[in-house]
């Protein structure tokens, strides 16, 4: 209510100048191009399979039908994959938050011999990803007996040097006096961390958490390498590698894709400001 009241006067202050009209029109056109593929796949998911493969194609279904969505749920795999995606992403996000907050704080607030070397080592981790070192990483996980397990999918995603670096930067910016005052009062290390530092870091932690969740939900390469059992696959992996037994069915494929993509899109619509800030924050920290 209050926000609406304050925006009304500012709105009226913006006149429709010719340049604004031109820019807005361009904006609408470009947006249409960006949204079109998603809209097209939504429409396709509402066609019958025969219509989805028709030559020549057309945008809107002639006959609207939910058969693809119904079939998707009847085949059953998609709900499994959804649960798997959720389990993996939630676990990865919570472990990453905990571990990288601790490490970022540790690096920012402790002095010990070899810290610079260790920090450099962690920074070199920025260059390593499953795309770069996939095969040796797989054999490592294979040796641990974690191929085709949730932990095999989760744990290798839980050592992101970038997130440690971002939080390290943030913690460095917190004035030491706050902690010192608490130490003087006899508070222990951990209590200071959880009661003073963590609450201060909430925006940064949110950014890291959001970014980690998006990355983990959308991760394809590592889950693709480490899971073979279709029961354990996550959404992006299952959709890409487990074909429907009746052949490529575009309507169903599009419906499945939207199932995988929609949760994040809906979340984005509601938490746009935080997510934009989070992505910008994590990205800009690399400067």
């Amino acid at each position, binding site marked *: 209510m209050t926000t609406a009241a304050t925006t009304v006067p500012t709105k009226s202050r913006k006149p429709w100048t010719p340049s604004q009209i031109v820019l807005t029109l361009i904006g609408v056109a470009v947006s249409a191009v960006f949204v079109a593929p998603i809209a097209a796949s939504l429409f396709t998911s509402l066609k019958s399979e025969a219509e989805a493969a028709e030559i020549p194609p057309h945008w809107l279904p002639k006959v609207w039908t939910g058969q693809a969505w119904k079939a998707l749920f009847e085949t059953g795999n998609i709900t499994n994959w959804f649960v798997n995606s959720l389990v993996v992403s939630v676990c990865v996000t919570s472990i990453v938050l905990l571990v990288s907050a601790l490490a970022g704080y540790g690096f920012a607030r402790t002095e010990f011999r070899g810290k610079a070397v260790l920090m450099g080592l962690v920074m070199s981790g920025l260059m390593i990803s499953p795309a770069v070192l996939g095969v040796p990483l797989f054999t490592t996980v294979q040796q641990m007996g974690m191929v085709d397990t949730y932990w095999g999918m989760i744990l290798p995603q839980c050592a992101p040097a970038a997130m440690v670096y971002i939080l390290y930067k943030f913690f460095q910016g917190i004035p030491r006096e706050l902690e010192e005052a608490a130490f003087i009062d006899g508070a222990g290390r951990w209590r200071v961390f959880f009661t003073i530092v963590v609450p201060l870091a909430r925006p940064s932690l949110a950014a890291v958490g959001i970014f980690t969740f*998006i990355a983990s939900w959308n991760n394809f390469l590592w889950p693709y390498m480490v899971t073979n059992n279709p029961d354990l696959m996550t959404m992006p992996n299952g959709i890409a590698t487990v074909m429907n037994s009746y052949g490529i069915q575009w309507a169903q494929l599009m419906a499945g894709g939207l199932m995988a993509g929609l949760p994040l899109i809906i979340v984005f619509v509601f938490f746009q400001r935080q997510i934009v800030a989070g992505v910008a924050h994590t990205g800009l920290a690399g400067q």
Partner: protein
Amino acid sequence: MTTSAQTVVAPARVKSATAVATVRRKQGFQHGGWFIAPFLALFALFVIWPLLRGVWLSFTDANISGEDTSFVGLDNYREALGDSAMWDALGHSAYFTLLVVPCITVMAFLLAMLAHHIERGKWLWRLCFFVPFLLPSTVAANMWQWLFTQGIGLFNETLGIDTPWLTDKSYAMLAIVIQTLWWTVGFSFLLYLAALQGIPGHLYEAAKLDGANAWHRIVHITLPMLRNITGLVIALQILASLQLFDQAVVMMDFSPGPELSTRSFVQYTLEQGFTSYRVGYASAMSIIFFVIIAVVALARMWLLRNREEGGR
């Protein structure tokens, strides 16, 4: 809150407390090891150890089963350097990077300028330009695979052309580039947008007073102020583009593309490791790739440092 209250109500203890405080303050910042330990454990297991293991494996003829491994010295590296398929794959990744990076940088900048300067509905532009980035790689790739399929795809239909995007070697990589631009430009767009919002408004007002027109303001204020962010966008994009894999394999149905034209370095490495079961050889290629990535990353650091020194 409670801490400040306590110090206020107990002024009598202040003097003796300073001594205690120094000790506590010092102790307070020690023993950080336990904070770092959990991360280090994971980092050692899943980053450092695989790297060392990769180096070791690259000197062996290891296969996927992990049995019958023997030391072969530099054979894998010798073979890799003479393997034209590997160079082709590296070429494809580099070609993709060369096409994507400039396009994405310019597009992201233009989109950000657009979204920044339209006064109404900022959230809508942000949503539209960024939303593709939220899709999983495989989903975004499936969408475009379908759009590009000859005959049944809407891309050709809408443009009124009949290009064999996915089946002809001269178009296949372009199709992947187009898909990638659509899918990932949103991320760089957000970075630019954040940077644009960070440019102090008084700079523009001062320039306006000096009689600079819009074009001059862009060239003399906006672009210089965006130099750092442009460096970042380019660096991130180069590193990400060199690691091309997801969208290429999905759009080509897990094949190396028409006449191998879209087989990226990552794809070739994984093929060697998991399809031909040559873990040793694939490890050698991983190490080569790691060196390439490291060189790019170090080059950026070196450039940054040079620029800083030049600026002084």
